[in-house]
């Protein structure tokens, strides 16, 4: 178990290194001259030289990369070209905001999906089960920004006027101070990850309910409630854990469009903004932060899966 974990950690590190290299290549090496791309055609040679130095564009490619990686490891992510501030300070608050958003989505989606999946499995082939099947199939198909807009039409501008359609905050205000503003973006993310977890939960639960130990417990006369809660659920949740974790990792990417849609002040919204401003240091930092998040959640997914599987847990 320990060796497998070490292997996964090492793989995560290699992945991050590859990601950093891709980001470096994309932002600094690929488009010819990044400095000219930012400043435009009429830039003076002096300004070009100054910007080149700021972006670590001097020297050979490998030495540029090592320089960049070196300053990255010291948490020096450079200075934003648009805001003229250190990038490290700029992405701190947005990382916190996005984490709050994703966490609230995860906290709602996971238990909800487990309950719906279990219920659907227990009522196999009933109207409830069929309805769940169709709804999850439809939800799984819809792109998340379509789900978001349908929710806005339903809950804030069209049928009902319950919730704000976009995030309006004053600078310095924390996103959790006004939970009503969190509801729509979080709900959109919940609806995006829910169908996958429900489907795998239902399938796993059906398998477990069919197993010998569940039948044995029933034959012994254990009440059905106890059979499900004590015997079936714990054995079904293990295999489902990996799918849950993978869906949560998906949130890290899915949050980008949803944040843009609701103007939620997180990493996704900031990234689109930085892209529009051609703010290369900020884009680099945000992409790396998202990749780091993704790798860490995936690693956690592996740990959970390993821990939930007795065969692996006890193996050397």
């Amino acid at each position: 178990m320990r060796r497998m974990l070490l292997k996964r950690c090492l793989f995560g590190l290699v992945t991050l290194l590859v990601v950093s290299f891709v980001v470096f290549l994309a932002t600094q090496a690929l488009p010819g001259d990044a400095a000219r791309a930012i400043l435009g055609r009429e830039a003076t040679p002096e300004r070009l030289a100054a910007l080149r130095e700021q972006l670590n564009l001097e020297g050979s490619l490998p030495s540029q990369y090592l320089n960049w990686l070196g300053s990255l490891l010291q948490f020096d992510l450079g200075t934003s070209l648009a805001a003229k501030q250190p990038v490290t300070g700029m992405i701190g608050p947005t990382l916190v905001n996005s984490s709050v958003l994703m966490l609230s989505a995860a906290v709602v989606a996971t238990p909800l999906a487990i309950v719906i999946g279990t219920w659907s499995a227990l009522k196999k082939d009933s109207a409830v089960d069929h309805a769940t099947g169709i709804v999850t199939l439809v939800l799984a198909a819809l792109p998340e920004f379509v789900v978001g807009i349908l929710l806005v039409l339903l809950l804030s501008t069209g049928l009902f006027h319950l919730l704000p359609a976009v995030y309006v905050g004053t600078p310095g205000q924390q996103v959790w101070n006004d939970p009503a503003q969190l509801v729509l973006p979080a709900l959109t993310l919940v609806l995006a990850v829910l169908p996958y977890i429900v489907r795998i939960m239902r399938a796993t639960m059906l398998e477990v309910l069919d197993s010998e130990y569940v039948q044995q417990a029933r034959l012994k006369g254990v009440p059905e409630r106890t059979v499900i809660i004590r015997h079936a659920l714990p054995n079904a949740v293990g295999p489902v854990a990996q799918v849950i974790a993978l869906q949560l990792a998906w949130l890290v990417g899915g949050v980008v469009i949803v944040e843009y849609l609701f103007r939620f002040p997180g990493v996704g919204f900031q990234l689109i903004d930085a892209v529009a401003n051609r703010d290369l240091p900020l884009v680099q930092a945000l992409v790396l932060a998202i990749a780091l998040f993704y790798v860490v959640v995936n690693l956690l997914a592996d740990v959970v899966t390993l821990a939930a599987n007795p065969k692996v847990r006890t193996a050397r």
Partner: protein
Amino acid sequence: MSAVPVDIAAAPAAPTVPVQGKIGLLRRALQRKRTWIGLVLSLLVLLVAFLGPFLTPHSPTAFVAPPFTPAGSEAAAFGTDILGRDVLSRFLAGGRTLMVLALLATAVGVGLGAAIGVIAAYLRGWADEVLMRTGDVALAFPQIVLALLFLSIIGPKLWLLVLMVALGHLPRVARVVRGAALSVVERDFVRAAESVGIPRWRIMLGEIVPNISSTLAVEFGLRLTYSIGLVAGLSFLGLGLQPPTADWGLMINENRIALTVQPWAVILPVIAIAVLTVGTNLVTDGLAKAAVGSDSGVRA
């Protein structure tokens, strides 16, 4: 969901004419009502997207009436948008590019991914290891962020958009196809073909690919659904077609601030995208259910 073990005695003999399997899959899929519903929904939107550009009452970029003219007026049946352009004309003209881009990205992504998957499964050894480990690294990166990164650096070019969406599908398709191809590679007819000296590329194309056609069909449907969402999403973010061109993703973005005044400019494209993705997903689900048990019982 695990692979269904097939009882050897009960399993049907390997199809002598592989094409039959493909038609059988479609026929089995069409026995389900949801496949039909999905087909009708998808075709409806495809019809609007491809015939729409010829049916526009006005030019999609022309000023026809004051901004936010309400729906039902004489000049514009669904009203005018934020710049006074006809909403209906923009809707009819704005779907074609999305369809073409999504289909192209899916074809490229599934084609290349399947090629890599089959090659990895057939060659095994270090080639398999290198291809699949590279895929694992690529999987550890959110698809949309990768697309954003390159589209922002190189610029919103349509070929790049197709390439990025396709590249995102590649490792995922390769992994699934490799899994399906692995059990075909071990079968006797592959050995037989090898022993009479048929070249490797012909064995892969002529023996292995026809036997994983169900997997490929399901994978194509699945990736098409995602492609539509991704292409529309990227164009919603402003990284696809550029204004003033009519495009569904762009329309949603341009008009969402005026959702209360002129909802149709958002509702029409949103509903079209929703109906299309639900349609393709229903067809894919029908295909997947029909594919269980075919493909030598490989499909998980």
